């Protein structure tokens, strides 16, 4: 076996046998899904609804026009015509209550006032604005003596059905996919690059490194470690894919089974109904059962269609490319950091500039997903240090081939560049002990013979 092969084998086998690898492989998907879905779940399970007490001086909203309660907001119209100052005083110490004061001239003034102990946030104000706005629109239309049914017709909700190149495309699914994929890449790069750094430091601190680099070139040692740890990440990824595929298959079989069995049980319902129920009632009930079933089936088909609309070979292929590319780019830099320092605490000063582009790209990912074709999204997905995350967020929405090729080409070129750079620092850093290393020093190391 070649020497670099031996190093890869050692890095791989010592890590794959660790308990932490097993634990991470099993708990990883749970952890990741928790990281991704916890904010969403938390947002949806707000324990206490925010109460908005409405004091309506205009008397426009007190009757049939009162606001509808939303998921997180409960409207209280019991003080509708009360004295605004008294109501304000009643609730002045309640944190989860705001008092909405609508002046009598709301139709002309277009302004209402919300009093709270703490700022209730954007959700509450925009919900009030929306509901009040449409109510006032309705009432303005009323004053024009338009018939009710016409007003009802004027109120319209539009759903935009998206299609790209004549194929059905679901923006929501694309967003989720982009979000999950780029977040996974971010986590992978971080976790495994830091592992590379730790591994380098372990060799340096335990002083075994000089023995090893008398047998192999420092560059071989560095690349062996980078590739070995990368393979660990890849193994973990493959296991996760297999796991989620299994769960998905079992899950969808189960769901289909659930939808199929009522067909069987239909007959039994039919029979029981035929026995006792009047014919008409039975038919009505049957239609209802069938309707619920087909609704569920439709929803399932829709999701299925949405998933099919995604160019999976491209997404998966690019995921693997950017996952490996991003990892190679960053892990070699982390290896260089590990070689330059004697202890973990010294890594901070070098970690910051290296991780800054990573963190920046995860921060602006929200914007990229919202507008995947903006110039911000373009530049972040072209620049190599941010492209693995930014490009992955864009790919599900479809991308110009030339942008993709440019981004990939630049990434590959930078990988060679950083590996060369990291190798130069690494070979000198490994044998430097007890020195507080500065950037100037690192610069000099590049030119040592």
């Amino acid at each position: 076996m070649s020497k670099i092969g031996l190093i890869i084998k050692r890095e791989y086998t010592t890590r794959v046998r660790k308990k932490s690898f097993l634990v991470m492989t099993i708990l990883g998907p749970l952890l990741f899904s928790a990281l991704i879905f916890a904010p969403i779940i938390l947002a949806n399970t707000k324990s206490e609804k925010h109460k908005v007490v409405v004091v309506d001086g205009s008397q426009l909203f007190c009757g049939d026009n009162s606001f509808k309660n939303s998921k997180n907001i409960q409207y209280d119209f019991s003080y509708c015509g009360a004295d605004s100052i008294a109501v304000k005083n009643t609730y002045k110490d309640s944190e989860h209550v705001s008092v909405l004061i609508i002046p009598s001239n709301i139709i002309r003034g277009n302004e209402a006032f919300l009093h709270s102990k703490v700022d209730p946030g954007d959700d509450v104000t925009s919900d009030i604005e929306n509901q009040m706005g449409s109510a006032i629109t309705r009432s303005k239309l009323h004053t024009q003596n338009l018939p009710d049914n016409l007003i009802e017709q004027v109120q319209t909700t539009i759903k935009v059905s998206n299609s790209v190149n004549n194929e059905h495309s679901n923006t929501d699914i694309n967003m989720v996919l982009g979000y999950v994929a780029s977040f996974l890449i971010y986590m992978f790069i971080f976790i495994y690059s830091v592992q590379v750094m730790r591994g380098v430091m372990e060799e340096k601190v335990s002083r075994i490194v000089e023995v090893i680099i008398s047998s192999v070139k420092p560059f071989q040692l560095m690349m062996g470690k980078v590739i070995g740890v990368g393979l660990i990440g890849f193994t973990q990824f493959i296991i996760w894919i297999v796991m989620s595929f299994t769960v998905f298959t079992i899950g969808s079989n189960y769901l289909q089974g659930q939808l199929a069995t009522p067909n069987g049980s239909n007959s039994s319902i039919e029979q029981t109904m035929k026995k006792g129920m009047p014919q008409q009632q039975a038919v009505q009930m049957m239609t209802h059962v069938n309707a619920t079933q087909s609704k569920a089936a439709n929803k399932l088909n829709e999701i299925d269609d949405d998933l099919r609309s995604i160019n999976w070979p491209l997404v998966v292929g690019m995921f693997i490319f950017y996952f490996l590319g991003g990892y190679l780019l960053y892990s070699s830099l982390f290896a260089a950091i590990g070689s330059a320092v004697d202890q973990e605490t010294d890594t901070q000063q070098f970690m910051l500039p290296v991780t800054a582009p990573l963190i920046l790209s995860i921060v602006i990912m929200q914007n990229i997903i919202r507008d995947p074709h903006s110039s911000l999204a373009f530049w972040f997905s072209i620049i190599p240090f941010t492209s693995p995350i930014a490009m992955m967020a864009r790919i599900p929405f479809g991308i110009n081939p030339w942008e993709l090729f440019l981004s990939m080409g630049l990434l590959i070129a930078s990988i060679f560049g950083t590996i060369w750079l990291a190798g130069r620092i690494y070979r000198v850093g490994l044998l430097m002990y007890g020195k507080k290393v500065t950037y100037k020093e690192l610069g000099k190391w590049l030119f040592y013979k």
Partner: protein
Amino acid sequence: MSDLLVAKNIVKRYDKHTALNDVSINVPEGCIYGLLGPNGAGKTSMIRIINQITGPDSGEVLFNGEKLAPHHVEQIGYLPEERGLYKKMKVGEQALYLAQLKGMKESEAKLKLREWFKKFEINAWWDKKVEELSKGMAQKVQFIVTVLHQPRLLILDEPFSGFDPINAELIKTELLSMRKQGTTIILSTHNMGSVEEICNFITLINNSKAVLEGAVSELRHKYKANIWEVQFNGSTEAFRSAITGKYELVSVNEEANTNVARVKIAEGSLSNDLLKTIIPASTITGFSEVLPSMSEVFISAVQGSNITPSAL
């Protein structure tokens, strides 16, 4: 005896500091070669260049007549001054890995390792993790790993520092028996006692330059000061009065059975003449030339240069 390793005019600079300034060494095959000098003199830099860990700024190294190349590492064994092992790895597994990096086949390495483990009586450690071993135990493992692939050239940087006395003795014995089998050994040290005991050749490096080199026995003769040691019975007073003219009494000690004196003979005189002078004054029981210790050789070699004898 041909030279196994030749380093010619090696220059190595770091930043503003010159670690090696035009240093050449010739290491004959089958000898123990000492690289000596105070800390910071450039010994470790030289050793790292021979191990191809760093490259010289100028000069070249020849191994067995060929220009030093990566494939030579399989014929070289190296024990650095700062030595360690992977703490979390098992002893046997780790030794196998390091042996394979030196180009050994796994099966061959396993066989050899078992032999060495038996020899050093550490068979029971095979499946222990290194962090469970004491420092002395780990040192044994490190030594085995260094010599396992039967290198033609063995390089040890400060081999006797950090080793406990029992291990140091064990290693000294191993080194001598390996030399007998034809292994060439380079070691750096500032322990002069071990130099006289085991080294055949030395180079003294001071302030980045080679200030002294040659065979240990020749150097001691070269730097001898014509001092003779005389053991005699009888009056020391009579002995003292006999030493005149061309002779200079360095010291006289009265001991229980016999007196011991050191006498310096002037350049050009013969030891026989000294004998003739002192025979009438006392009963001579012993007469021998005093050779300088290596420390004394170094001090006289570098007098004038700013070496500090205490550093040796």
